[in-house]
């Protein structure tokens, strides 16, 4: 199933192809990194490493290195009408919090589970601590 999904993903259109295909209609721009921003024009980078110019509205304050998602219309090489804005603040922190939680779970699993020649088993006396 993973292999099937991987090959499906190989046919996925890049953000550039999706935006061009939308022809004036709003299209999503997920997980874009802000490179620079001055006045109302921002330069951002998509996951395919392509740089984009965005006519940025004042209501969504951004700064360089921020990770953002939004919807917008591609017109004359510039993304306009930005809306549905998401600021992915804490994107990296979330990874570290998740790794910490996983480490704690691993420690508990070593307490709860045992292994013998018949396979893995649940230690009876420790299951009530879950």
């Amino acid at each position: 199933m993973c292999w099937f999904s991987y090959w499906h993903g190989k046919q996925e259109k890049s953000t550039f192809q999706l935006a061009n295909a939308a022809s004036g209609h709003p299209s999503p721009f997920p997980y874009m990194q802000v490179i620079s921003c001055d006045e109302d024009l921002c330069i951002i980078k998509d996951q395919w490493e392509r740089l984009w110019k965005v006519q940025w509205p004042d209501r969504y304050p951004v700064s360089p290195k921020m990770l953002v998602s939004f919807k917008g219309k591609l017109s004359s090489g510039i993304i306009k009408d930005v809306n549905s804005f998401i600021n992915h603040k804490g994107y990296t922190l979330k990874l570290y919090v998740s790794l910490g939680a996983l480490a704690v779970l691993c420690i508990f699993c070593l307490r709860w589970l045992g292994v013998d020649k018949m396979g893995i088993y649940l230690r009876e006396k420790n299951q009530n601590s879950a």
Partner: protein
Amino acid sequence: MPDLATHLLAQTTINQLPWIRKIAPFTLLGATAPDLVKGFSRWATPAEKWWVYPFHSPLFMAILFYAVSLLFHEKDRPYVFAGGIIGVSIHVGLDLLQIHLIGEYFIFFPFSFQTVSFGLFPPEATLIWLPVTIAVTAAAIIIRKLIVKRA
């Protein structure tokens, strides 16, 4: 996706229900399983990330937990499978509540690549709410212990 700490805390809160106690360790494994490989996909190209997407499919996870349960003693296998499925269901349910501009959760996979999202909170919002989640989980554990003590 909400962070794994939120998933584990939500599952731990639910695990305080008496009927789930026997399979509680396996529900925690189920609550983390869909995201276990997702961290690695952060360094992959967008097209290569797709191999981790089936991990949020209930059918895929059911097959996976059936396979994992075979590694356990025969008497534990039904608990591993049931606990895993309950954990995965609650994990996927939480994931569906967050906002997606482009869907990532193919819950009908392999039958369809149709995605579902209820769009209630942004992806990183659970980090801000983590102290509240910890407090709710601690309260649930204390309440259960008080009930057990009184009984």
